[in-house]
């Protein structure tokens, strides 16, 4: 729904309410909600500030970080209706004996669940007791009781908050692990050259991984998180490179003729799919994780690029092919048979397969060409029905969606005003916010766990 230019201010004033109505209807058609558990009734959850126990000078900072991170994680999860801090009772119950549930289940908080506990610093260790209580079940309220005891460091309180948030999300979110400890890999030019960077799922702790001084692209972390595959473009061409996250250095991978890029790990971590022009035309090839046992799986004139495995089964590959002209999303068996075209028009790139195997996220310009309406946005398609929904609208050019391990979030690249940043959102398109703010952030890839 685009606003048409209006003749005069009077018409504008008259039509304005109509336009908003039309826009909201149009929005309702496009903004269909989907994603694991996202359609369900959200649980109203309160997170009390944790009580400080003791007088260690480091405690105040730790408590502040803990409260902030726990609340943000639970908000980001997308499955809770969070009680805002201003609606919460002004108390910090530090133990089950100290909590008065009627304070929490009554207005204005109206919480169905409440998380609370205590934090202390003892002998250089951060100690946290955390509980999750069912506020409506005063007889037997305890849902979760956790204890954490970890050596105090600059990020310990943050780390424990992530752990406790994930425990709550797993318990209340249908047994699906939280993502508070997952990582996002991406390309940044912050240091000058395009290098691979890593950050926490919430944008915290951004740090540089590679220092190659070339053009590093398409980072893909292995399922176990141990190896990072990417492509490096130099004046010799583009090669697949592997960085060991455990050894903190580059490890060897066979160099070929400079035409290999866009790697993708199979879910068992034993194979890599990538685009290679070693036989002339850019095709999808599959090798072992160490680069040997090569076999070609596509054989059709035109660009074939951006493979991604079905993470659930490991026996299918989605990729982008320009065999009929503009690039489209395709699916095939990992042996190259059973090719199925998924998109029917426009310019579609950068597929990412949802962890449950049911959805593809990709970037799509449905109307492509000079002067065509609309832009390049992130879409999610249900593979079985080929039905799709649009997740980003009018926020610039978006590309490179990547699913979170819980299938509830999608991280993506947003380019506006000649500048690219990494953004994240829930898989229904809500909750969009930036994770990077400096340099150009590109090609995000969410870790598998």
């Amino acid at each position, binding site marked *: 729904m685009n606003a048409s230019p209006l003749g005069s201010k009077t018409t504008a004033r008259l039509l304005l309410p109509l336009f908003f109505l039309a826009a909201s209807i149009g929005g309702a058609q496009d903004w269909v909600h989907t994603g694991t558990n996202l359609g369900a009734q959200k649980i109203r959850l309160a997170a009390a500030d944790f009580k400080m126990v003791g007088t260690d000078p480091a405690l105040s900072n730790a408590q502040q970080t803990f409260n902030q991170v726990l609340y943000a994680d639970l908000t980001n999860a997308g499955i809770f209706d969070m009680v805002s801090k201003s609606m919460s009772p002004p108390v910090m119950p530090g133990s089950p004996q100290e909590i008065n549930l009627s304070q929490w289940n009554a207005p204005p908080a109206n919480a169905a669940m409440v998380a609370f506990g205590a934090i202390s610093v003892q002998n250089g260790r951060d100690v946290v007791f955390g509980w999750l209580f069912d506020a409506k079940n005063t007889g037997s309220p305890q849902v979760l009781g956790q204890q954490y005891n970890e050596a105090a460091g600059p990020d310990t309180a943050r780390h424990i908050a992530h752990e406790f948030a994930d425990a709550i999300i797993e318990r209340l979110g249908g047994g699906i692990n939280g993502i508070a400890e997952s990582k996002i890999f991406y390309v940044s030019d912050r240091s000058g050259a*395009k290098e691979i960077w890593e950050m926490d799922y919430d944008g915290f702790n951004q740090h540089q991984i590679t220092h190659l001084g070339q*053009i590093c*692209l*398409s980072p893909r972390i292995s399922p176990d998180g141990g190896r990072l595959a990417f492509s490096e*473009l130099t*004046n*010799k*061409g*583009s090669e697949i490179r592997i960085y060991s996250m455990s050894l903190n250095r580059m490890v060897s991978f066979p160099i070929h003729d*400079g*035409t290999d*890029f*866009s790697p993708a790990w199979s879910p068992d971590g034993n194979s890599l799919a990538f*685009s290679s*022009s070693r036989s*002339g*035309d*850019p095709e999808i090839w599959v090798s072992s994780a160490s680069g040997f046992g090569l076999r070609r799986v596509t054989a059709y004139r*035109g*660009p*074939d*690029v*951006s493979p991604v495995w079905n993470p659930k089964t490991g026996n299918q590959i989605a990729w*982008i092919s*320009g065999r009929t*002209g*503009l*690039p489209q999303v395709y699916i095939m068996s990992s042996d190259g048979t059973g090719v199925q075209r998924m998109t029917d028009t426009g*310019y579609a*790139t*950068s597929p990412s397969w949802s962890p449950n195997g049911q959805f593809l996220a990709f*970037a799509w310009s449905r109307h492509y*060409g*000079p002067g065509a309406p609309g832009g390049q946005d992130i879409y999610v398609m249900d593979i079985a029905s080929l039905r799709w929904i649009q997740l980003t609208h009018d926020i610039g050019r978006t*590309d*490179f969606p990547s699913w979170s391990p819980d299938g509830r979030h999608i991280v993506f690249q947003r380019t506006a005003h*000649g500048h690219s940043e990494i953004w994240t959102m829930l898989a229904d398109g809500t909750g969009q916010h930036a994770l990077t703010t400096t340099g150009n952030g*590109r*090609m995000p890839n969410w870790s598998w766990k």
Partner: protein
Amino acid sequence: MQNRKKNSALAVAALAAFLITTGCHHKQAAAPEPPPPPPPATAPAPTANISVTPNAINPGQSAVLNWTTTNATDVSIDGIGAVETSGTKNVSPSDTTTYHLTARGDGGSTDASATVTVAQPQAPAPVPQQMTEAEFEQNVKPAFFDYDSYSIRPDAQQTITQDASFLQAHPNIKVLVAGYCDERGSEEYNLALGQNRANAAKTALTQAGVDASRIRTISYGKEKQFCTEMNESCWQQNRRDQFSIDQ
């Protein structure tokens, strides 16, 4: 039968003896031999040695030739003429020169040679290694492409035909074909599209007679841009195959 066997055995022995004696004879050529069956050389064979110091100079500098011979009566050096049987001489050639010495004597003739290399700072001749990028680019023009296409357009075909004739006239140059894309579209897809563009030019050059082994391809996708404005004339500049000397 017996007889023939004996005969052949004798023949083998004789051949062996001959080979041994001739072998020895060569090794001891200079030494006067007692007179066995073949009459000894009446005069020893000449020997010759020539060297040049230094053996590499710049134009205008000189080097010293130094030669010695033995058992020679008539010694000459090509380009210099007859010379003493041993001697030295200053030379200052403008090009790399090989001095070839021939020594003749009653015992036969022999020769020796020495080379002085003269550095060539700026040879006017079109030596391929000396061709500058600028000169190359002046003659081997880029090929431009349509939007999201890697088909060679008629104008690009014309350019490539001219590029090919220049390349055929300079058969020692290796060429790098780099495919570029405009800034629209996806980074990964454009890497593949750029590869297809480079491949298309390689095919066209090959069809125009350029040896495929001289051509290397690379794709820069949209990672490097010739023009950074967001308009069609700029995008057209960026949708290209750029040719350069492959070092």
